[in-house]
């Protein structure tokens, strides 16, 4: 039978091994979310434009990113960029850039759907009031697109948070890595992975609940 012993799991272990990784995982999630949504919104606007020289590169980028496993992108970026810029980038930095670029493709599809969900007459109304394309998008269309898509954007962010564990491929020190190192040092890998699983579950599940609450609230406002 399993002989589980969690006694080694003291606050000191948590702050010594896990906390640093936890902070990085949150940082990675937050930066990749904000950067990904910003870049994704630009990609979505490019794809929805009527100019092929904007549509094609954006479509190519999004489709490529969405067709390659994330762990491969993480690895390739980590291995290739030093060759290009002539010096190593560091696992953490490399992970942040990779996740932002990769998630942008997914956020872009969400934003595209969001922009299309805003009635076409809204654009006409913006133009009719003398707004430029940029003003119409920034003041009229995108705020509504964000609101309509907020639950989906957050759901994607939960997936992103879970996916940050993939940085193990390049040895970045994230939440999972913190548990792993602690498990090895105390020779209790089963227990630490169990605790890790529970922690990932609690965070992701409570975020999901939050999304559901939010969805209900948005439904009322409409």
């Amino acid at each position: 039978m399993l002989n589980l012993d969690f006694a080694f799991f003291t606050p000191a272990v948590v702050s010594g091994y896990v906390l640093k990784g936890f902070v990085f995982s949150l940082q990675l999630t937050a930066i990749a979310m904000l950067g990904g949504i910003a870049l994704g919104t630009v990609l979505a606007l490019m794809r929805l434009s009527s100019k092929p020289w904007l549509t094609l590169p954006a479509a190519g980028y999004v489709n490529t990113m969405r067709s390659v496993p994330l762990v491969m992108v993480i690895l390739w970026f980590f291995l290739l960029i030093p060759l290009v810029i002539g010096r190593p980038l560091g696992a953490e930095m490399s992970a942040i850039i990779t996740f932002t670029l990769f998630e942008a493709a997914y956020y872009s599809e969400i934003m595209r759907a969001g922009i299309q969900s805003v009635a076409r007459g809204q654009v006409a109304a913006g133009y009719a009031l003398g707004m430029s394309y940029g003003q119409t998008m920034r003041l009229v269309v995108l705020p509504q697109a964000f609101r309509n898509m907020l639950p989906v954007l957050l759901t994607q962010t939960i997936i992103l948070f879970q996916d940050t564990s993939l940085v193990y491929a390049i040895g970045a020190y994230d939440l999972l890595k913190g548990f792993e190192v602690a498990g090895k040092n105390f020779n209790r890998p089963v227990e630490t992975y169990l605790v890790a699983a529970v922690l990932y579950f609690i965070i992701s599940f409570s975020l999901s609940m939050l999304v559901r609450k939010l969805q209900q609230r948005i439904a009322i406002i409409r």
Partner: protein
Amino acid sequence: MPMIEMKNVSKWYGEFQVLAECSTQVEKGEVIVVCGPSGSGKSTLIKCVNGLEPFQQGEVIINGISVGDPKTDLPKLRARVGMVFQHFELFPHMSITENLSIAQVKVLGRGPDEARERGLKLLDRVGLRSQADKFPGQLSGGQQQRVAIARALSMDPICMLFDEPTSALDPEMINEVLDVMVELAQEGMTMMVVTHEMGFARKVAHRVVFMDQGRIVEDDKKEAFFGSPRSERAQQFLSKILHH
């Protein structure tokens, strides 16, 4: 010089011609009503006036400025041409006050306080001062359309375009919107109105333009149009919509 002048405007969607050599003009202070069966191109025509719909041939000139000219600063021109839509198109994520002030601030560069003041004054005028802090979704259709008219007026337009302003409204709300429009017409606003409300046309229109299959079939003084429309198509149309 007419306020709005359209010269031989033609437009195609691919092979299909939606507008065929449409010419008309609206003098300063004039109110013209554009009517016609659905699919006759009247909404497309009015959207060509401020360049919301591009057209392939002909010319539209507003107050001496050509809409189709690629060198024209369209946003600047549109800022002075008020437009009211069938489905109101208030911005649902902004309060009524914000709806009224956003373009004043962002397009005309007015200060927020001045814009708010002006917005409230216009809300007063359409009888909706008490709704200032609500959101569009909390208002009835008729109220929303009156706010939309106030929003267009907040830009101090030189003329106003109405694209079927009452056709999305419940019958009991049509009059509250028409009343605002009649008042506006009587104050001398230059207006081009796409509508089937013949009562409105009789009351304030100077001329009536009748369209069918993308062509302007009649362009008459109101009295002549209602007295004896020349084309058979217009006679049929009038007999159909005036019977109830």
